[in-house]
C-alpha cells in the first residue's frame, strides 16, 4: 500500500475525559484504503522536546468526509500538544502505516482493548461486522471516569467492560471477564491492544484455550516506515520491524509470549 505524507486539517478535537480526546483530521484528497490495525505518524509542531514523529493508531475512517479519526491519550509533551489542536490547524501525517489484523477465516472473535489500546478496536469491529464476523468487545480501564463512551461499540455488538475499581462493569482486569474464560473456547480469534502486561495476560489465556491471538504492539519507533530498524520485536523468524511487519503479530510468532 502506498504511503503518503500529507498535511491534514483538524476538523474536530473532542475531549472525552481527563486523559483522552478524539481528533478528527480531514484530507483534501480521496482517502486511500485503510486497514484495521494501521497507524499514522504525526509530526508535532512547536514541541522543543518532540523531535521525532509520534505513532497513533487509526481509530475510525470516514471515507465520505475523507476524515481519519484518532483516539489519543495525553501522556507526554507530544500528546499534550495534540490535545491543544484546534479546528483549522494543520497536522502533518504519514499514513497508512503497518500491516493489519487478520480478518479472513474468522467467525467469532473477542476484541480486547485496555486503556488507549481500544483505539484500533473500533475500526476492526466495524470491518469484522461488515464481513459477517461477530465481534465481542471487551474493554478494560482503570475506572469508569476514563472508560470510553460505549455507544459506537454497542451499535456493532455487545460490549464487556471491566474496571480495576469496579466503578463500571466487572471489577478487575480484562482477563477476569467471562469473555476470556468460559466463553473463550467458542472464539476463532482474540485481538488485543493495550499495555504490555495486559496483552501478555490475554495472550496467555488464548494460548491456554488454544485460540489464536493477535496483538498490536506499541514499540518505540523513530521512523514508522521501515527505514531505521529501531522498532524490532524478537520473532521466530528473527528481529522483525513493528512498523512494517507489524504492529499486528500473531503471538505464535513472537518469542517469549
Amino acid at each position, binding site marked *: 500500500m502506498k504511503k503518503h505524507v500529507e498535511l491534514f486539517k483538524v476538523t474536530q478535537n473532542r475531549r472525552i475525559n481527563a486523559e483522552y480526546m478524539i481528533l478528527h483530521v480531514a484530507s483534501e484528497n480521496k482517502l486511500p484504503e485503510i486497514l484495521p490495525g494501521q497507524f499514522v505518524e504525526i509530526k508535532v509542531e512547536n514541541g522543543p522536546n518532540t*523531535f521525532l514523529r509520534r505513532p497513533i493508531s487509526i481509530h475510525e475512517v470516514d471515507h465520505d468526509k475523507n476524515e481519519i479519526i484518532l483516539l489519543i491519550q495525553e501522556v507526554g509533551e507530544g500528546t499534550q500538544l495534540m490535545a491543544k489542536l484546534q479546528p483549522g490547524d494543520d497536522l502533518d501525517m504519514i499514513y497508512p502505516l503497518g500491516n493489519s489484523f487478520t480478518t479472513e477465516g474468522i467467525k467469532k472473535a473477542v476484541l480486547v482493548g485496555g486503556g488507549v489500546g481500544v483505539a484500533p478496536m473500533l475500526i476492526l469491529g466495524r470491518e469484522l461486522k461488515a464481513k459477517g464476523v461477530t465481534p465481542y468487545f471487551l474493554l478494560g480501564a482503570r475506572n469508569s471516569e476514563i472508560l470510553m463512551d460505549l455507544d459506537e461499540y454497542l451499535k456493532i455488538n455487545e460490549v464487556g467492560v471491566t474496571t480495576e475499581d469496579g466503578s463500571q462493569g466487572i471489577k478487575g482486569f480484562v482477563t477476569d471477564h467471562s469473555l476470556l474464560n468460559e466463553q473463550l473456547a467458542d472464539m476463532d480469534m482474540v485481538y488485543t491492544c493495550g499495555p504490555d502486561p495486559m496483552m501478555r495476560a490475554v495472550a496467555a489465556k488464548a494460548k491456554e484455550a488454544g485460540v489464536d491471538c493477535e496483538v498490536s504492539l506499541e514499540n518505540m519507533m523513530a521512523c514508522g516506515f521501515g527505514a531505521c530498524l529501531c*522498532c524490532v520485536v524478537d520473532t521466530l523468524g528473527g528481529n522483525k520491524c513493528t512498523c512494517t511487519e507489524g504492529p499486528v503479530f500473531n503471538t505464535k510468532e513472537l518469542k517469549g509470549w
Partner: protein
Amino acid sequence: MVNLAVDINGYTLKNPVMTASGTFGFGEEYEDFIDIDALGGIVVKGTTREHREGNPYPRMAETPSGMLNAVGLQNKGVEHFASNIYPRIKHYDTGIFVNVSGSTIEDYVATAERINELDHIPGIELNISCPNVKEGGMSFGVHCPSAIAVTEAVRKVYKKHMMVKLSPNVTDVTDIAKGVEGAGADSVSLINTLLGMAIDAEKRKPLLSTITGGLSGPAVKPVALRMVWQVYNAVKVPVIGMGGIMNATDAIEFMLAGATAIQVGTGNFVDPTMTIKILDGIKDYMERHKINDVNELIGGMHV
C-alpha cells in the same frame, strides 16, 4: 541553469545531496515519498560479511533535538545484498554506495571484495565508526593504526571509490582523517554518531538495551560542522559532511565549512521528503546569492 554536480575524487554526483547509511534503508523505503533518482547519491544500510540480528530492543531513545540509536548493524549479510537487494535497486539513476562494516579486517575485506563485483555500485563507505557493535566498528576508527590498517587492507581489494566514514568520538579527528587518506581513501565522510546514553529516571534503567548508543540529529550539528571544517583543512580528498542536517541552510553551512557533498540522516525520519526540500532550497539559495556553480560553496566560509 545552475550547476549542481560535484566531483568526489573522480566520481561525479549529480548534486551534493546524499542520504546517510542506516537512515534510508535501501532507498526502497522512500520510493512512496520521493523520486530516488533525484538524489546525488544514497548510502545503503550497514552491510557485513555475515547476517547479523543487531541488538535487542529497545534500540532508540529520543533526546533534546536528537535521538540515540543502538541498532547494531542488523542486516542479512553481503551475499543477501548482492543476490536479493542489489538486483532490485541497481536501476536507480543515482550513486549507490554500500556502507561496509565488520568485526575483523578480514570481514571488511571479504565484504568489500563482494561489493566490488557489483557493476552498478560505484563505491563503498567504509564504516570504521559504528558505536553500536561490541567488536570492530568504532574501535577501528578511534585509533590511527587500526584505522589505517583496515583502510589499507580494503584498498588492496576494492577498486572503485572508497569513502571512509570517521568517528567523532576522538581527540583529534584530523589525525585519523590524514591516516586514512594516506592509506588510500578516496574521500572521507563524517560524522558518524556521538556515543551517548539516556536513562529513565523513574524506572532507574538505561533506555537502550545496550546502555550506550549513537547520538544523531540537530543536537550534534555544531560538533559535526566543526569536525568537517577541521578535516577539510587537513586533507586533500573530498569531505562528505553530515550530522543534524534538517534543511537547506544546514546543508549549505556544511558545504561552506568544506563539505563537497552532504548526507541527510535522522532528518529523513522526521520528513521523508527532506532530501528533496534540501535540494530545492540549495537551488533557491544559489539564485538569491547569484551563485552559478554549487562548487563555489565548498569551503566558502570567510574566516
